[in-house]
């Protein structure tokens, strides 16, 4: 459960967002404009903010700047319109943690919200993962299944690292493209699936119980066993 502040003036969109997020058992507060958003961010506690770029009074980017100026630390996802590339750049510069281009799939938003919510601070990023039977050393970039070393291509290692950092949560295809190849366009081919399938094959042939799950139509998840 996350406490989410949604800043969106279009009531159709905000209703849709609220319903979808509440259905995923989050607590949602909606601000209809920029000044309301700044007030709420100041007064109440939130885990995460979803901020539309186009607001009737104060622009989303200025709202973000103001929130950050007041030392409000929760992560913020900006929602930008198609074609407004300048908004994306300005949003990230103003302190947004991620952005999504409208329209987007709710699954995509949910995956990004979880990733941001659980994201550890940079300094406490783990350098070593043991997930199921897979052991990952981030510094030497080595992967072992049991005692057996798995030889991965650099990109395959990156994919596994992204999965490990988000273990238990879904990572969408576009999140993989962003974090492994730093691209934000849609290459329209099943690039991620092909790479994942190679990664799976290598893990499997090393004797792993193959903990990568496919989330149909969304992405992949590394099964978490605590």
């Amino acid at each position, binding site marked *: 459960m996350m406490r989410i502040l949604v800043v969106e003036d279009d009531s159709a969109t905000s209703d849709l967002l609220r319903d979808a997020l509440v259905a995923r058992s989050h607590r949602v507060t909606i601000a209809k404009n920029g000044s309301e958003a700044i007030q709420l961010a100041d007064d109440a506690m939130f885990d995460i903010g979803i901020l539309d770029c186009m607001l009737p009074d104060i622009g989303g980017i200025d709202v973000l700047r103001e929130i950050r100026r007041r030392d409000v630390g929760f992560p913020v996802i900006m929602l930008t319109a*198609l074609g407004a*590339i300048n908004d994306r750049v300005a949003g990230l510069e103003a302190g947004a943690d991620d952005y999504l281009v409208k329209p987007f799939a709710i699954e995509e938003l949910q995956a990004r919200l979880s990733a941001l919510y659980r994201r550890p601070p940079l300094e406490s990023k783990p350098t070593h993962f043991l997930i199921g039977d897979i052991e990952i050393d981030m510094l030497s970039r080595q992967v072992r299944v049991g005692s057996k070393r798995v030889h991965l291509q650099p990109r395959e290692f990156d994919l596994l690292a992204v999965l490990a950092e988000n273990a238990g949560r879904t990572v969408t295809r576009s999140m993989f493209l962003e974090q492994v190849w730093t691209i*934000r366009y*849609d*290459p329209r081919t099943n*690039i991620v699936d*092909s*790479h994942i399938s190679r990664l799976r094959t290598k893990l499997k042939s090393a004797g792993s119980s193959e903990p990568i799950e496919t989330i149909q139509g969304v992405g992949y998840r590394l099964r978490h066993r605590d």
Partner: protein
Amino acid sequence: MTNLLRSAAYRLSFFYTAACAIAILALGSGVYFAAQAAFQQQQDEDLSAEMRVLKREFKEGGRNDVIDAMTRRQASPNNRFLYALFDGDRRVAGSLTARRQPVGFSNFTFEDPEEGPDKARGLLMPLDRHDSLLVAIDTESLEALDRTILFLFTGAFSLVLLLGLIGATLLGRHLKRRLDRISETAGAIAAGDLSRRIVHSDRDDEFDRVDNALNAMLDRIVILLENLQQVSGDVAHDLRTPLARLRARIEAALAGPADPVRLREALESAMQQSDDLLGLFNAILRITEIEAGASRSAFQSLNLGELIGIACEMHAPSVEDSGRSLTWHAPADIRIFGDKELIMQAVSNLLDNAVHHTPENTRIEVGLVSADDRVSVSVCDNGPGVPDADLTRVVRRFVRLDRARVTDGHGLGLNLVAAIMQMHGGKLVLSDNGPGLSAELQFPLHRLS
């Protein structure tokens, strides 16, 4: 005149002329008054000197000696002084027919035997209790000099004024004509004639440069407008079909029995179709964004070889999974100036095309070469290729060859690549690979850093 003054060009020229005239006027009067003062001072000194000589004569020999001296000096050919000796108010000697003046320097009128009344400057000093001596200089020569100075300056002033006014009028007319050309063109364009351009000369002066800059701007605006029109047209044409199809499916689903499984399938298919439509919108907006040059701020020096390597490595597994092969050769030392993500996307699109429009077992090869004046990235396949007649057509928006209608995609891939290349000052060249298609991204060398 008010009309003329309303024109900035004329006003500027007129004010400039007026400023010149005022400067000449100030200089003229300055010279005039300074000369006058200098001449008068000289005259006064001369008069004092003459007076001293005659006073000495009086002291030595009395009235008679002074009269002798006066007569003698009057007769000398170089003499320019006039004298009068007064006993009380009565003139007793000297050729100067004038009344007694107050003591000291004075300006007065005397009777010239040849010319009648004439102006003079004189110095009167008492010699003893009765007698006083008046020494004077005819000021006619000074007046003549004054007149000359006045005449010259009046002449110069009028000439400056006249030339200035003529010049101002000509300059004003010239400026007005050139500015009128610009505003006339702007007016015609505002009225809807987008083909109008400002006529300019080959002199390459400031105006020509402004004209050229404005014309270039107009060209750009026209291109953007045409793009906009084309996009609106394309959107109208190409979105109607899938939207109509989507609607028909929903209608059919609603008309049939309310079987949840069937309805769910219909909904899933509708969602898939709306996703495709959104993808199409995305692609159109992306192209428009690139064509508008909005994101050139992301340009940087890039290692093109490395970038091609990353792109190919990214695509290789999915190309292989599709039953085709991908090989690449990209020397790592070739750098260009550009947008990393857009170049990646261009390569992605070409690879995507090569996979989607070829049969299985097709070989796809990516190469990178640098020639004298350009750097080329080539994506070649040995598939069925594109007929020569269609090579230029496929780059256009929404053009899909009949063969491609059976595969997915919206006919924007190559158009996007072309837009990316144009933004980089390069171009997309398609040619026959004999067999297959060769798509080449040509970056000009002057963009190299």
